[in-house]
């Protein structure tokens, strides 16, 4: 099982944080462009899901899966978006994202008075804690290739 990369977007679509662990295929465009592309796609999927759903869905879009990887999507009521790409075997990534929000984002960004909100996260402690959380997760087993 592998975790590939993580995006955090603000309510307005600013890329707050990006990090990657096992990403073999580069997109070939700059990080900013890639973030815009990613956000645009998620925005479209969200409205697509809510329009096309035959029933009232409480949570809306949760994840999608290709033959190679799964994209997990977690959005808070405040509009913060957490996106995690894993391989297809990782089922519990959603809980991991919730944990990331609760135990790392809330603690080390919201409670840090020196962190500007809705701007890319600079705090080194936050970066460290994110890495720590994912590396101790059972989903994180980097296959050395």
């Amino acid at each position, binding site marked *: 099982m592998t975790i590939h990369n993580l995006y955090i977007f603000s309510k307005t679509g600013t890329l707050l944080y990006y990090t990657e662990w096992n990403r073999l295929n580069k997109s070939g465009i700059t990080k900013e462009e890639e973030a815009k592309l990613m956000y645009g796609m998620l925005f479209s999927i969200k409205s697509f899901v809510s329009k096309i759903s035959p029933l009232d869905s409480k949570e809306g879009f949760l994840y999608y899966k290709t033959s190679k990887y799964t994209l997990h999507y977690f959005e808070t009521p405040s509009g913060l978006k957490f996106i995690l790409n894993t391989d297809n075997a990782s089922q519990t990534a959603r809980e991991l994202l919730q944990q990331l929000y609760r135990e790392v984002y809330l*603690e*080390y960004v919201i*409670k*840090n*008075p*020196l962190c500007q909100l809705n701007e890319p996260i*600079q*705090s*080194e*402690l936050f970066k*460290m804690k994110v890495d720590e959380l994912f590396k101790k997760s059972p989903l994180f087993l980097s296959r050395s290739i």
Partner: protein
Amino acid sequence: MKQQIIDSKASLGTTGEADDCLFEYLHAELVNYVLSKSSSGTEGEEELSRLEWMGFSVGYRIIERLTREWSRFKDELDMIKFICTDFWSSLYHKQIDNLRTNHHGVYVLQDNAFRLLDKVGASNSKQYLKESPRLLAFTCGLLRGSLANLGIISTVTAETTTLPSCKFHVQVQKI
């Protein structure tokens, strides 16, 4: 650090998240507000002393309530000990980790995981070290105010070399 985690979990059960954060958020806004008021745009002594004065008034009042059930203190050291244990744990959910004194009116109170700093920085990074004095000014005043109401006139300064630990130097003025 470990102690801190246990403490915050225990308090989550009894007091709730909002109770715990309210002080931290209010303090953060207080610091921002005072600094934004500064005319020159630079972080001068004046702005920090305003924060320190706010702390002083708060400390002066708080001590009335905290010492309600207590008998009178024997001496100066007794008061400082009270500050390190009961006072600190009721405000910051932990006790002062280390207290040192030269027995001539100088006390050094060291907190290895100070609550207002432990979300800000880690020991292996120098980030935010420059900004940390503004997060400590209020607490310096708090200490000075509390001691003032107990009858000790003092000057309190803070120092940080590695976040999130900090030292408060209390210098008692002999009259």
